[in-house]
């Protein structure tokens, strides 16, 4: 393990805890990464193929986005790591000068590609573009991510659906630990690129704990909580999250993968998570769904045809400052720009929500923030989802 420690001591990352909630596990930090500092808790929008769904990088900067995601599987296929490396990495290819996080590619292989097979060597799958069989090993995943030049890389993990139980979950957990070591060894740029471990173990508390024990022995720059947000019961979900944050080191960032609903974000910040990503806000925008503090508006519905208010009168985004629900409703029938307007609004909503969360932690009023958030989101307290109430109660925030 000696070599592993040496790698991490040079990690290009610094986490400064700015404030901690005296009641819950929430914390506000400044995460300094190679391209700029990131204020946490942070929501990271997903730009799968080196672009954020119709939004220019300047628009994304104007929304004050400090970090976004790229997907290794997609970018590795098209345009390919060689080309991106020639373009000075993904930053140079897409002309984004702030931070990027890339996933390992493993999740997409299991979720998108039929006939993928996992062995100790890696994940084997058939390319959807040319039908060739491809083996993705931990070394290759890191190799591609080194070419992409992301600020945060994710280890290749053995992903099992969160609804699977039994010995396969345990096998995947142990294999993910072994693959972590291979990823650490494979990283060619430990001085420029951070490698995060991914905690696995399904919904089994014992396996999660074992994975946490094993992985926290490695001095990696940060940890992700993986294998959740895949259709499991919310009661199981939050318990795995809070178990994970309980055992993760205080001085390192904690990234909860695949979480992006406003309620989940607020609850999981209370449980001690710092970073989140999800395609939901941008994907739902393209279907005409605009996020608001009281839920969402399905702008394609007829009820908005003559609604001359902005999406959210209190929102400061470029869409709300200029356009009405009625116009967006009309525009949806003729042009893709309608999607761009709502994508901008939804990203703005997510980022503004996280800024408010952070400020409330700094101001030592996070529990009050959570209560006000719940009140706004739900018409009455008997509609609060019980899992959220329990999860918040577990960190001493009583909302109902």
């Amino acid at each position, binding site marked *: 393990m000696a070599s592993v420690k040496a790698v991490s001591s040079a990690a290009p990352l610094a986490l400064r805890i700015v404030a901690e909630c005296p009641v819950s596990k929430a914390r506000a930090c400044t995460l300094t990464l190679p391209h700029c500092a990131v204020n946490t808790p942070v929501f990271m929008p997903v730009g799968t*193929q*080196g*672009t*954020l*769904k*119709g*939004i*220019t*990088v*300047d*628009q994304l900067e*104007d929304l004050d986005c400090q970090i976004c995601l790229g997907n290794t599987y*997609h970018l590795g296929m*098209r*345009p390919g790591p060689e*080309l991106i490396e*020639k*373009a000075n990495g993904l930053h140079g*290819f*897409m*002309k984004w000068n702030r931070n990027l996080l890339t996933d390992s590619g493993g999740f997409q292989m299991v979720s998108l590609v039929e006939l993928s097979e996992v062995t100790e060597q890696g994940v084997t799958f058939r390319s959807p573009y040319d039908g060739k069989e491809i083996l993705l090993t931990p070394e290759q995943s890191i190799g591609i991510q080194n070419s992409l030049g992301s600020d945060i890389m994710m280890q290749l993990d053995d992903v099992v659906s969160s609804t699977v139980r039994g010995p396969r979950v345990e096998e995947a957990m142990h294999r993910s630990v072994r693959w972590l070591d291979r990823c650490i060894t494979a990283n060619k740029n430990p001085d420029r690129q951070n490698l995060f471990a991914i905690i696995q173990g399904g919904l089994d508390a014992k396996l999660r704990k074992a994975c946490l024990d094993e992985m926290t022995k490695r001095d990696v720059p940060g940890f992700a909580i993986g294998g959740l947000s895949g259709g499991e019961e919310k009661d199981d979900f939050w318990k795995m999250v809070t178990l994970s944050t309980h055992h993760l080191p205080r001085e390192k960032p904690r990234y909860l993968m695949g979480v992006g609903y406003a309620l989940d974000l607020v609850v999981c910040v209370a449980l001690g998570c710092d970073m989140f990503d999800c395609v939901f806000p941008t994907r739902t925008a393209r279907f005409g769904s605009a996020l608001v503090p009281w839920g969402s508006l399905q702008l394609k519905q007829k009820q908005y*045809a*003559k609604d*001359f208010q902005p999406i959210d009168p209190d929102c400061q985004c*470029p*869409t709300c400052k*200029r*356009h*009405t629900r*009625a*116009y967006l409703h*009309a*525009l949806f*029938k*003729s*042009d*893709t*720009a309608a*999607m*761009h*307007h709502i994508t*901008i609004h939804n990203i703005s909503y997510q980022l503004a929500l996280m800024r408010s969360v952070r400020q409330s932690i700094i101001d030592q009023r996070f529990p009050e923030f959570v209560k006000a958030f719940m009140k706004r989101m739900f018409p009455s307290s008997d509609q609060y989802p019980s899992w959220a109430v329990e999860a918040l109660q577990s960190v001493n925030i009583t909302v109902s």
Partner: protein
Amino acid sequence: MKLQLSRVVQGCRLGVLTGLGKSGQHSLELPGCLLYTRCATVPHLTQDTLHTLRDLPSVTQVSVDSLAEHQEVLEEFKEGVRNFAGLHDTVLFSSLHDSANTSPAGHVTNKTVSVWGSGGRIELTADRFMAIQEAIQPDCYQSMADGETWQANTSRKRVRKAVDRTLAHLDECLVLHQKSQELKQAEIFGVVEGGDIMEERLRSARETAKRPVGGFVLDGFHSAAMDQDVRAQLIRATSAELPQEKPRLVLGIGRPDEVISCAEAGVDLFESFFPFQVTERGCALSFDYTIDPDPETAGTSAPTVLELNGEMPAVKKLNGNGVTNMTPFEMNLKDKRYQDDFRPLVEGCGCYCCKKHMRAYVHHLLVTNELLGGVLLMLHNMAHYLGFFKALREAIASERLQDFKNRVLQCREGD
């Protein structure tokens, strides 16, 4: 609205249209183009991305095609399309059809025309047409017209009927216009029809010119409608019948070579659906319109010498990559050769796309069907098209129109 002509060179009218807009503070240089929109939005672009472009036309074009279905909403809104769509301060020109689409034929009657929105066909009487204009609240709008004569082999009888109907529509629109509060400050443009029959064109022009219109729309000259020489002849003769001091807008003409030919025949205004069409086929306008030869390319490709009479080089079918209707003025960015091309779309172009991004990135966005591909191409293509019009005006002003034509018309071979 006032048209001031500064000079006429080879038939091209150089001038400026002033006193545009509600308070008359806008102007538009001629020859020039209107800003193309669908549902009052330049396709793919938010107001923020659109306004990264400099020197946008001061006149935005909207079409009844894309707005008729929203009539009731606009009537309830009461403040017109400009406010409804959240547009910046701009002059609004409202036309009947969206020139980027071909309207199905066979739906015109003596009393009605049809438009096509997202929900299908909407039949309009003059009353309804004018009610929609009142809801749109444009600064200028084209009168209702029977423009179905663009198809090949339209009979003389049908053409005559189109001219008669269009004049009758104009008279009806004028009566309603004069009664309208909402359209009090708006200008109505009369529509000249007549297909490819000279005497009908002349009759249509003369009769329309007798009416109190602010300007003229030349309809039925779409690229598919007729041979370029025939079109130029018809337009030249038609223009001669129209008063010098009123602007002429031609519909359905977008290609740079056709624009030049129409400008020489006396047309002042054009639409800008062409850069949108180029965008939709994944292409980027890349033709050269700079008169001063670029030292890099000057030695390699000699300008084609063309006759003054408007003879154009045959359009090469560049369909090797499966892109239909591609013109020689553009490059197909989906082509594999741009995969690792780290240059901007057009060297020296000042648009957001070219200043920021490279061909390889736009190629990637197009082959992966990413929405940003359309955004970046639309920005570049509009910028390039506006640049072309600016260069055309400069060429007329500096008496270098022939050099300009030679430059634009030299058919590009590869890259």
